[in-house]
């Protein structure tokens, strides 16, 4: 394991891929890996790309990779696609549009199934991003599943969120709605050669103007990803946003918030594991009889189990 981690940190793609799998399948080694990896992370610019299915996320990602490459950056990509809620299987087809970069040693692309998560990412997407960051990628690009209105988990792990909109998806009330429209640092109106692109851009701008003065006013950019039009500007705005985060109070606030969430997440996971063990021990047909007959309440049972957990951990 030590050797595998060392090789991954040197940038060996096979080892990086192995680490991501171990973390993704929640193997017992996952925690050891993350403890070793974490100190090396924190250098990459983590960018999220989100938007509805077919908006052009993968095509735009492909072009964004090429632009960062031309600036001399190394790029890690995590492309998330939905897993079947019935069989657990998945077709991971995002990288299909990025295959021109497959043999580039400076680009590492990894597909992930959501495996039951509902927020637009999978449970291990953040860990995978940290691994790519620690293993030397300058930019980590995360493409979410095609989202609707409220899959906003990406905002918890990305420095910069790009939301891709396309013309013809609804009126200005859609744009005023809560949820996905609130998380974008950059709005990208893709397929801008289609009718209605200007209207979408204007409506987003009007919505943003209503919010008044803020330290970062999200730019609204138009692209035609397939023809590589407007992509250079997207990349330069992404970089400008990273600079903004580096030197602003807002950036510090976001970094702290994210670190806090990481600690909370680990705490929650550890406590959930303890609860599971304690509840397994406590469960019995007698207890269920008592509960069914209303001789005790779920509140009392929970309180007692919590008591056992607390005394056991204190010992």
């Amino acid at each position, binding site marked *: 394991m030590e050797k595998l981690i060392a090789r991954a940190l040197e940038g060996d793609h096979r080892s990086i891929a192995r680490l991501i799998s171990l973390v993704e*399948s929640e193997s017992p080694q996952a925690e050891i890996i993350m403890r070793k990896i974490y100190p090396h992370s924190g250098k990459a610019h983590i960018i999220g790309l989100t938007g509805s299915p077919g908006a052009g996320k993968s095509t735009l990602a492909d072009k964004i990779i090429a632009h960062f490459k031309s600036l001399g950056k190394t790029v890690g990509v995590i492309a998330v696609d939905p897993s079947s809620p019935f069989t657990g*299987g998945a077709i991971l*087809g995002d990288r299909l*549009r990025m*295959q021109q970069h497959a043999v580039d040693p400076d680009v590492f692309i990894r597909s992930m199934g959501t495996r039951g998560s509902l927020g637009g990412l999978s449970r291990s997407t953040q860990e995978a991003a940290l691994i790519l960051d620690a293993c030397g990628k300058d930019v980590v690009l995360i493409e979410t599943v095609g989202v609707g209105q409220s899959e906003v988990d990406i905002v918890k792990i990305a420095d910069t969120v790009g939301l891709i909109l396309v013309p013809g998806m609804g009126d200005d009330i859609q744009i005023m709605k809560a949820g996905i429209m609130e998380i974008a640092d950059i709005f990208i109106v893709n397929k801008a050669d289609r009718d209605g692109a200007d209207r979408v851009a204007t409506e987003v701008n009007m919505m943003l103007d209503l919010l008044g003065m803020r330290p970062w006013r999200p730019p609204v950019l138009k692209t035609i990803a397939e023809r590589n039009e407007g992509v250079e500007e997207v990349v330069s705005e992404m970089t400008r946003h990273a600079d903004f985060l580096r030197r602003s109070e807002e950036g510090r606030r976001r970094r702290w918030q994210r670190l806090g969430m990481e600690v909370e997440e680990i705490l929650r996971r550890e406590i959930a594991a303890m609860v599971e063990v304690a509840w397994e021990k406590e469960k019995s047909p007698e207890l269920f009889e008592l509960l069914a007959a209303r001789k005790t309440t779920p509140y009392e049972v929970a309180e007692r189990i919590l008591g056992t957990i607390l005394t056991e951990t204190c010992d």
Partner: protein
Amino acid sequence: MSERKVRVIVAKPGLDGHDRGAKVVARALRDAGMEVIYTGLRQTPEQIVQTAIQEDADAIGISILSGAHEYYFGRIIELLKERKASDILVFGGGVIPEDDVPKLKAMGAGAIFGPGTPTSVCIDWLNSAVREKWARETA
């Protein structure tokens, strides 16, 4: 704990653009609970092998209807060796004459599924071959 999933690359090497078969297989593997990474058409052996490595795939499934199977199987298996990734299984299907199957297997292909093979045969083979691979990894 989330269990380990079988991860399979489904790839179309070369210039043959007939991907119906590859898509049928990809869909069947998905319904069998596997994660299928679909690379799309016109892939070079280098792209396919690099994809398999980055995706930490258990197997590469190649669909060929052009007649160039000997070259592509040979080259992909050779590249896997070069990259010290020979543990990744290689299988395939398409229009491959019976007579060529022993040659491909001798090169290192795990299984060749000809036209008309029920997808369940392919799924069963993959499930057991990948589990054997996992057992070798932990041994």
